[in-house]
């Protein structure tokens, strides 16, 4: 491989002592400081800032209203209009999950249940939110449209155990989602 030799640029005396550049920087900072005190920071409105610069005073202020439609937050399980839990415990999300955050224990739906024809549902479903990387592969792989990434990003807990979302919590976050494909309809 050919070696290309690069010459250092020849600097003039004024550039060598870098005093001019330093002063330029001071004045630029000063200009922005004055602007921000006057409430005239660039993009402050777009970024829903507190008025002082572009900084948002989280958590008193947050950006939730600005979250884009494609935002990927905590994964959660959903029920449909009929109140059926959509997950059938096929374990594809568990399989695809890159950080192995999902753990499912499959279970059988008892014959007395109105949804007995679906036969299978998760007996337990746990997502370890310390492991989750919010990649959205679980949502992409789900053949039953049962798991979705919500916009929740505030996942808090004071112990590792609290950071594991169990089935109840996942359905509480997910809620009801309408307009999904009704695969287990009356023809099934």
């Amino acid at each position, binding site marked *: 491989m050919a070696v290309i030799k690069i010459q250092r640029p020849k600097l003039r005396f004024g550039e060598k002592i870098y005093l001019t550049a330093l002063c330029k920087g001071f004045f630029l900072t000063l200009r922005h400081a004055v602007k921000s005190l006057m409430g005239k920071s660039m993009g402050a409105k777009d970024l829903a800032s507190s008025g002082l610069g572009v900084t948002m005073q989280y958590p008193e202020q947050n950006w939730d209203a600005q979250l884009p439609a494609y935002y990927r937050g905590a994964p959660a399980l959903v029920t449909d209009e009929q109140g059926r839990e959509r997950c*059938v*415990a*096929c*374990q*594809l999300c*568990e*399989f695809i999950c890159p950080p192995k955050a999902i753990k499912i224990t*499959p*279970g*059988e739906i008892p014959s007395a249940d109105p949804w007995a*024809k*679906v*036969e*299978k549902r998760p007996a337990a479903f746990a997502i370890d939110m310390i492991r989750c990387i919010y990649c959205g592969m679980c949502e992409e792989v789900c*053949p*039953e449209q049962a798991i979705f990434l919500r916009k929740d990003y505030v996942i808090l807990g004071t112990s590792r155990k609290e950071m594991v979302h169990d089935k109840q919590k996942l359905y509480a976050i997910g809620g009801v989602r309408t307009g999904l494909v009704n695969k287990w309809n009356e*023809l*099934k």
Partner: protein
Amino acid sequence: MSDTPLAKAPIKTPKDLAAETGRVNVQINGVWHQFPKGTRMIEACRQVQVAVPHYCYHPKLTAPGNCRMCLVQIGMPPRPAPGQEPQRDAQGYEAITWMPRPVIACANTVSENLGICTTSELVENCREGVMEFLLINHPLDCPICDKAGECRLQENAAAHGRGTSRFVDNKVKKPKNVAIGPRIRLDDERCILCGRCIRFMDEVAGDPVLGFTQRGTHTTLSVHPGHLLDSNYSLNTADICPVGALTVNDFRFQMRVWFLKETPTLDVNCGTGTNISVWTRENTIHRITPRRNNDVNSDWMPDSHRLNFHYIDGPARLTQPLVKHGAHHAPTGWPEALQSAAARLKAHAPQQIAIIASGRMTNEELSLTRALAQAIGTAQVALVPRFAAADALLIAGDRNPNTTGAKLILDTEDPFAKLDAIREQVRTGALRALIVLGEDLIADAGFTADDLGKLDFLLQSHILANATADAAHLVLPAAAFTEKCGSMVNLSGRLQRLNRATDSPGLARDDWQILRDLIRALGGEHPQLDQIEDVFVQLAASIPAFAGLSLATIGAAGVPVLDTGYQIPLLENERARNG
């Protein structure tokens, strides 16, 4: 054709060369091969690694040819006109004329100069058509189907399917989730009517309770009224079901198959030594299935043996050495346990000590048992017999899996002979210490708790807490059959290998390590034994039948080492069926 004498010299054509060994020449996808006469086309293709998708065909059953998935294009040399010599190419093969219509590869046999093509457009179109018909009424409930991941219909739909359905009518409704037997469940909507299960129950299990009812698109697999699919071989039907129509209750919704790791090993429930695969995930066994070995169990295994693994993860499992203080056992560590065992054994004269070993132990463990007896100086070594009715298929009357190996290693014709004498001596008080390896004396060997109470020292190694463990002064936790590596010799004299599928729980140890450490603690002279392979090498040096073998060379299918004359009835039946 020339009339010169030179040209009339007998030049052997490929046909003549093949015929000398009873074979025929067959061209498969442009490459010439030789196969024995009477080979099925599908088997010929399989032998040369050419995949022919199929559902109804199974090598161990008759071929009714009803799924039509294995259609291939064939060709033969044209019949020459009277007086005309056949056209031959440079290698001497006759030119093939391809037939315009396909044939099924499963029910047709190869013939001389036959051409088979599995890749032509016609064949691809046939497969796509068959797949489209099969998927018309298939429920596509793969997310809840236990077969998903190992389903032939799924695989072939991906390889040969259209990808989209053109069917607009409602699918035909059939019975779902039907309990047709105590251990098996039927979903008729998933059934593709291949009839493998019907043929298996008729031809192999000898209990023809399954059949088709209704006609046309309403054809339904069902069990004969008043009967159940309750044969002890019923779960093999779920194995050979190409779709998820028949599923095993025990494995139902337990784990998706793509999570499972498959370990080839042996069944230890009887002397047949059925070859099995143990399917595990994260140290949990989820199911056991038979593994093909044409010299042992063909493709099958009995349900009773297949389902007998839940005790391994059960609540009675021993996970640490226990020492008896007064009426109760307290956990202890391995070094303390072995030291106290050695000290208490040394306190007795050799003739006051006996060893009761198990026919469920591997060859390696039995050889170390022999070494232990030598280290103690006792000749009182016996196995616990375990005989029950044989079932005329795969279950042998001898329920000990390694009686043949024990005969070889302990060098006796009847390894059970001394058991009665040992029992009597325990009762009279002549024996003061007993080492019990992998047996429950109270349940299986005719001892009572009172008998065992007379002993000064009772040492038991076992995997489960049982009545004998309750009476034992020292209990050592051992490894289950899925947790150990080793070898066994089955009733027909075949040396086969066990492989480790899971790790032992807690502090439980491999039996051979327990025996080795016990011998060391007793101060017995013993060569360096670091791994199970060392034990086998040492054993092979002393047993002529094992000469030159190692655990690695036994392989997955085993090696015949003895001719015991024992015939496995199921293989006899199979030979009779195939003529």
